């Protein structure tokens, strides 16, 4: 059975990164923006695991980094959702267009 080449995996992760970026800039719902950020972080995870497995299998640096990214992403999402809930109490909406009290 042939192994999947590294370039295929990198293609997936780069596509995921830019999909996340696109979502981040176009979506207006705060929760969806958070989901886009998670996509970006997951593309990084795929990169790390793939590089570690294919190029540098003698150390486990990449896999350790992935574990830390997953746990930090969870903490980040927790704080962000707490802020969004606090905001929902005064705004009654999760649309970023409503957050317009501070402007140039």
């Amino acid at each position, binding site marked *: 059975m042939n192994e999947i080449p590294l370039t295929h995996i990198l293609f997936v992760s780069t596509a995921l*990164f830019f999909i*996340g970026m696109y979502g*981040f800039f176009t979506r207006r719902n*705060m929760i969806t*923006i*958070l989901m886009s*950020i998670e996509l*970006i*972080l997951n*593309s*990084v995870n795929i*990169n*790390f695991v793939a*590089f570690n497995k294919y*190029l*540098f299998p003698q*150390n486990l*640096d*990449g896999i*350790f*980094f992935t574990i*830390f*990214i997953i746990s*930090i992403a969870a*903490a*980040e999402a927790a*704080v*962000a959702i*707490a*802020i*969004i809930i*606090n*905001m929902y109490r*005064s*705004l009654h909406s999760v649309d970023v267009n409503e*957050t317009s*009290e*501070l*402007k*140039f």
Partner: protein
Amino acid sequence: MILNDIFILMKQELMLLGIIMILLIIKVGKDWSNESLLNLINALLLINVMSGFMMPAEGFLFGDMFKTNSLITLEKNILNIGTLIISLQSYSWLKNHKHLIEFYILMLSTLLGMFYMVSSGNLLMFYLGLELSTIPLAAMANFDLEKRKSSEAALKFIISSAFSSGLLLFGISLLYGTAGTLSFTEITSHLTNTPLQIFSFVLILAGFSFKISVVPFHFWTADVYEGSPVAVTSYLSVISKGAVLFVFVSVLYTVFKPLAEVWYNMLFLLSVLTIVIGNLFALRQDNIKRFLAFSSIAQVGFILVGISGSSQMGTASVIYFVLIYIFSNLGAFGVVSLVSAIAGKENISDYRAFYKTNPFLSWVLTIALFSLAGVPPTAGFFGKFFLLIAGAEQGNYILIAIAALNMVISFYYYLRIVKSIFMDPNEHPIEKLTIPMMPKIALFICLAGIVVIGLWSSIYEYIYSLSTGF
């Protein structure tokens, strides 16, 4: 033996951890009154500052994950002093706050994150420190819980910082793919200017630029500064920015040294953009916090000029400038936070005829603004002077000329505030404020810092002797 090393090398981190533990225990136990708590916490922070100067040590821990030397200890001491001043200044705001202990726990954990970031010798450690120093800051920005502005600021901060750390991480992952290691010293030997490495460097630079609000990535700064409580704003603009700048200099000068030609051109472009746009936007602000936000963006532009010099003087002048910037910016923010906490006014037009009612505060604000602008007897002049000299070592005089011209422009908007304090008439000036003792001490420390650092040149020589060359 290893335990002994940990206690000596990580003493500043362990000290902070100890204070956080004490606060957690107090939180679980019986209720204290806010005033006695504030006294206790400020005393603990003072002990923390003083213990930082004792028993300096050098060495590595956990492979090369954690490193420390006398320069890093000095950087941590600078951050400690800034935190103590902010804690003293926010006395009148925190006195009536319901969640006082949580505020300090969050603030000290961000400081702990910055310490680990400053002494990191490995990309994993660096990333963990960076996240520990930004995630609690978002919660701190939301500390005026019932104000809509505050939660808006927190939302903008957490989303932009999460995005920037995403960019940074993608860059780090590509760098790992090309170098095969995460340790700073080993990466340097693997850098060979391949396109993929340059791309990963651009992503890492973008992540850094978000944190220190360099111009194409500065959009969150003004909104977050205006919306958050003043104590958090000053913490953001001074401590968190200073810590990232320290790391930025050391990462550029050691890890990305083989890419020096690439990053010099990028820094040139970024610093010109940052200085010009920061100045132009600062000209038209009415809210004093927004004004200080844009002025801090322009100051970062000057720091980038110093960094682009890539010499021993570059490191020294950046650290020296951050030290001065802490005192002068905190002097300005101290007055702003007093006026905002007691009189509830934050517009520049409210400061007209401020001198008639509050001469002491007016003088503090004036000297701090002079130092930010760079008027000779104050320390700010020497800070900017050394930055420009460090930048001039590369022989690119266009950059220095643009920076010097922009210094002149910045005089206009700083002196505009000084003029409205002393000269403009106002029928309803801000009433006479009674300054509590702790903010008064903080203001005196800032004043002393601005004057003494400017006149006592051996401080710069000391920093220069510690800093490493390029």
